């Protein structure tokens, strides 16, 4: 979230599209009700299903899954044509005026530079035209034909309400109602918040779904404001934290990236990460990359990281492919290219697409380690559970270890929620049986590996043996110790250049924040964006002072919010070029002539002049990007592509069905079904009674939603002679499941391009372990393809068929 859960109450319009907050985040939904009661805010829900969110919405519009981009580009077109643009904001705070280099083209759903064989773009042609001053050329008048604004206008031109209706199945009048409501928030005193989640990410063009809304929010001037923003509702309690801390194949904590093979040495690596400003005087904060990177290496390798060895740069693995994400991992496993796998509190057998492939892949491992507080399906993938998990243990040669871990109740530490709040919690219970904390287990694995290498030597032991290990009890590192490591600390005294003799930094002290990190090895910091969470002031994550002056929803003294305890990102953009808030009633920070101050920590240098230094300090441009150059694999602007499995042909580019830049593995392309055999558009989703595959282990939740079911419209039920509460078989190209049928008015067939599209809703949550009735996993059906940019599997749009059937053999 750019804003926070406690900021939602400040909005005038909530657009829930690509999510279902009432269902998946009930307690976060509170803010919406409050905004409605206190400021008369409206709630609009756009979703293929009439969800729990829709049940309390002011307006609901149906949309066919996987067509959000068409809808949103249509809204952008509506705003531009009806002059519903926050002009001052758009002109000054976005790259609307930037001039794109010649040679860029777009036609039939493809941008210039596409290589069909590689399913990839050469993105060079998407950069700005650079002037002799070395900066990007701009045309503040927005007249230049190749300025981003005109390219955007041109790009969205074709997305008329009629086309939107053809593609999305959203009736024109409903679309226009929504478009109008959204466009009204271009007024300086109105803000819209976009609350989205996996309904946007789990598509082969997920990133572009979100980009599209970001573009809209920028031209409406809703970014950085109270009650505005792009609010990604993260799924899990600490998935934000795990991502912040770089627990991904190609990441380093704080969104730094691992070197690739081309980064042959430290210099090359840093050279590619200069992030020079593209406009005069702009901040381009990533220029400090080196400070964060070196401080990270120091916290990893301590004294072993020296200037001489480039701070142990070579200790880091270098990537040969873009990412070793889960889909690639299971593809490799399936090809027998992997021997070991460790699952920490994760249930891939139920979570990843194409369950049969996942099961087969796990069976090709030498060893599988599962750390979990619950008896997961994954740990039992080798067991035979009849229809739910057919297997013959004798044939499965994988050694499986199940290690009992603690739950939240028995563990201490911090979790980062969607608001980017790092909240500390304390253990209140004794772990059951022999359960241990994950920290202890990971430490033990490392220590034992280290001992083996110390004893026997082996392949490149250095990085293991030299791993910095500053813990009082080496065998059992404590949360507070690690938190201090993450925050960062000073390794050497640093003199203050302005006042000689005075120390800028004092050895052994915690750093106050990332502002003081250095690239000379005098500071260490595990994760720069978390710096400040545990400094000399103490454990700021444990703060529990809930005062909130003037009820802005900032709560600056509650826990710690990254970065720098800032509650609303880009909050500088809430003020105009004179530093005055666009809307005085919505003030967050303000320029008083010398400096910025207000309710929140300014997202800009306190003394940065409002008329010269632009708000988006993380970009080289200093402004928000309507247009992206190389950063998006699949285009500088979003384009509507159909899901890889779609009931209709792509109206705007019949030759291109799925995202042309999305990675598809060989075997999987053949595993896509067609509308001929699989006529119905399926979507998977969560129910409020359950959380993924854990809560089925909880007797109460198992009772509240006891059994696997699918939801279909009354029309489809009639057509297929399916009774409510009876058994149905649903099958896709990947597999087949049996479920109870819930026949509902909340799902209705849609008319798309003259074709009736029936939707089959498939909740996740059931498996063959736990207190609930045994059930098939929705992932038995889902396709094995991910988003072009970050490989999120396409769970929200695929094809199935359905028929009445008999109860499962094993009940």
């Amino acid at each position: 979230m750019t804003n926070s859960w406690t900021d939602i109450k400040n909005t005038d319009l909530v657009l829930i599209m690509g999510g279902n907050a009432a269902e998946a985040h009930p307690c976060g939904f509170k803010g919406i009700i409050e905004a409605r009661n206190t400021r008369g805010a409206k709630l609009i829900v756009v979703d293929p299903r009439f969800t729990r969110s829709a049940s309390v919405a002011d307006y609901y519009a149906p949309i066919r899954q996987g067509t959000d981009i068409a809808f949103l580009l249509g809204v952008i077109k509506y705003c531009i044509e009806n002059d519903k643009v926050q002009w001052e904001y758009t002109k000054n705070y976005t790259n609307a005026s930037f001039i794109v280099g010649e040679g860029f083209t777009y036609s039939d759903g493809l941008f210039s530079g596409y290589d069909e064989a590689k399913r990839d773009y050469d993105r060079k042609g998407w950069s700005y035209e650079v002037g002799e001053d070395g900066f990007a050329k701009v045309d503040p008048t927005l007249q230049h034909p190749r300025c981003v604004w005109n390219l955007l206008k041109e790009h969205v031109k074709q997305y008329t309400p009629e086309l939107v209706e053809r593609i999305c199945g959203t009736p024109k009048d409903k679309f226009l109602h929504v478009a109008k409501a959204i466009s009204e928030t271009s007024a300086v005193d109105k803000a819209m918040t976009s609350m989205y989640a996996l309904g946007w990410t789990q598509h082969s063009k997920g990133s572009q779904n979100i980009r599209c809304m970001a573009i809209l929010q920028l031209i409406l001037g809703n970014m950085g404001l109270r009650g505005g923003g792009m609010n990604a509702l993260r799924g899990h309690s600490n998935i934000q934290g795990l991502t912040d801390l770089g627990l991904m194949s190609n990441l380093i904590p704080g969104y730094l990236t691992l070197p690739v093979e081309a980064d042959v040495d430290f210099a090359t690596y840093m050279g590619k990460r200069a992030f020079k400003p593209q406009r005069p005087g702009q901040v381009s904060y990533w220029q400090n990359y080196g400070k964060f990177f070196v401080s990270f290496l120091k916290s990893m390798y301590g004294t072993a990281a020296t200037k001489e060895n480039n701070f142990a740069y070579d200790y880091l693995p270098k990537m040969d492919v873009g990412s070793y994400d889960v889909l690639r991992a299971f593809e490799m496993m399936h090809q027998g290219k992997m021997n070991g796998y460790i699952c920490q509190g994760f249930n891939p057998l139920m979570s990843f697409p194409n369950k049969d492939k996942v099961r087969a892949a796990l069976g090709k491992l030498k060893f599988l380690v599962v750390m979990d507080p619950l008896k997961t399906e994954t740990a039992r993938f080798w067991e035979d559970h009849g229809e739910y998990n057919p297997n013959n243990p004798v044939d499965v040669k994988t050694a499986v270890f199940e290690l009992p871990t603690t739950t939240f109740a028995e563990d201490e530490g911090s979790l980062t929620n969607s608001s980017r709040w790092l909240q500390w919690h304390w253990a209140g219970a004794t772990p059951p049986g022999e359960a241990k904390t994950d920290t202890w287990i990971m430490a033990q694995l490392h220590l034992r590996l280290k001992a083996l290498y110390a004893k026997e030597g082996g392949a490149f032991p250095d990085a293991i043996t030299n791993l910095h290990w500053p813990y009082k009890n080496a065998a059992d590192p404590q949360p507070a110790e690690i938190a201090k490591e993450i925050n960062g600390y000073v390794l050497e005294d640093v003199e203050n250049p302005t006042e000689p003799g005075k120390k800028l930094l004092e050895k052994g002290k915690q750093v106050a924040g990332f502002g003081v990190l250095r690239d000379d090895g005098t500071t260490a910091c595990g994760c720069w964006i978390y710096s400040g969470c545990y400094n000399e002031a103490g454990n700021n994550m444990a703060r529990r002072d809930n005062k909130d002056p003037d009820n802005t929803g900032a709560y600056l003294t509650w826990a710690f919010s990254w970065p720098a305890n800032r509650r609303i990102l880009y909050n500088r953009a809430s003020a105009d070029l004179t530093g005055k808030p666009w809307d005085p009633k919505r003030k967050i920070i303000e320029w008083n002539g010398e400096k910025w101050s207000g309710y929140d920590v300014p997202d800009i240098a306190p003394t940065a002049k409002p008329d010269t230094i632009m708000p988006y300090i993380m970009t080289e441009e200093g402004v928000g990007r309507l247009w992206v150059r190389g950063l998006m694999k699949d285009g500088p602007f979003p384009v509507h592509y159909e899901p890889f499995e779609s009931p209709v042909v792509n109206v705007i580019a019949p030759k291109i069905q799925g995202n042309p830049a999305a990675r598809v593995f060989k075997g999987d392309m053949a595993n896509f079904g067609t509308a001929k055999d699989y006529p119905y558009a399926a979507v998977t989703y969560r129910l409020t009674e359950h959380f993924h595959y854990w809560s089925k282990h909880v007797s109460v939740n198992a009772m509240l939603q006891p059994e696997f079911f699918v939801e279909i419209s009354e029309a489809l039920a009639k057509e297929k002679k399916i009774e409510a509460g009876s058994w149905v078989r649903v099958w896709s190209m990947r597999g087949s499941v049996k479920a109870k049928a819930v026949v509902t008015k909340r799902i209705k067939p849609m008319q798309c391009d003259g074709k009736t599209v029936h939707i089959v809703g498939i909740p996740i949550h059931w498996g063959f372990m736990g207190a609930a009735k045994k059930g098939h996993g929705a992932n038995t059906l889902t396709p094995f393809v991910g988003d072009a940019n970050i490989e999120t599997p396409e769970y929200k749009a695929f094809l199935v068929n359905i028929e009445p059937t008999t109860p499962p053999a094993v009940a």
Partner: protein
Amino acid sequence: MNVEVSRRHFIKLTGAGVAVTAVGAFGFADAEQALAQSIRPFKLAKLTETRNTCPYCSVGCGVIMYSQGDIKTGEKAEIKHIEGDPDHPTNKGTLCPKGAALLDFVRSETRTLHPLVREPGTNAWTQLTWDQALDRIARLMKDDRDANFIAKNKDGVTVNRWISTGMLAASATTNETAFMTYKAVRSAGMVVFDNQARV
């Protein structure tokens, strides 16, 4: 505008001796004696409180755990009840149907209790000690790493990469666990490494 006695006040109430004022607050003014006999005794009295965060979704609701025994003093502690933290800015004491049932997650019948191993080709779990389990896993990891570690690529560039063993990090472990995991995984050169962000 729920009537909610602030948590601190509430704690006073649950302390020794039911505060008549509070009882009065809801019309039981003259009833203590009768209540003592007819109404179920307040089950949270005399339990230890611990602040925690709901482990499910990303709202990060504050919860208060009520336990028999206090682990901070080294006692054996067992959770008896879990409820929303009224002081929390986001959930203000409320919880969803999952959070409200956290107690039964903690005491779920299908919790793992002991290190177990399932040997290749067998159809059963066998229990082992932590030392046995961890030593075996470490050995398996090292053997695989030594066999498949890629120190340099074909161009002779140092890549120090290990891709034949992978790790899936969790989604509900603490940031501290996450960083510890990161250190252990990356120091081994592991790159087949991901988390649950996408699902």
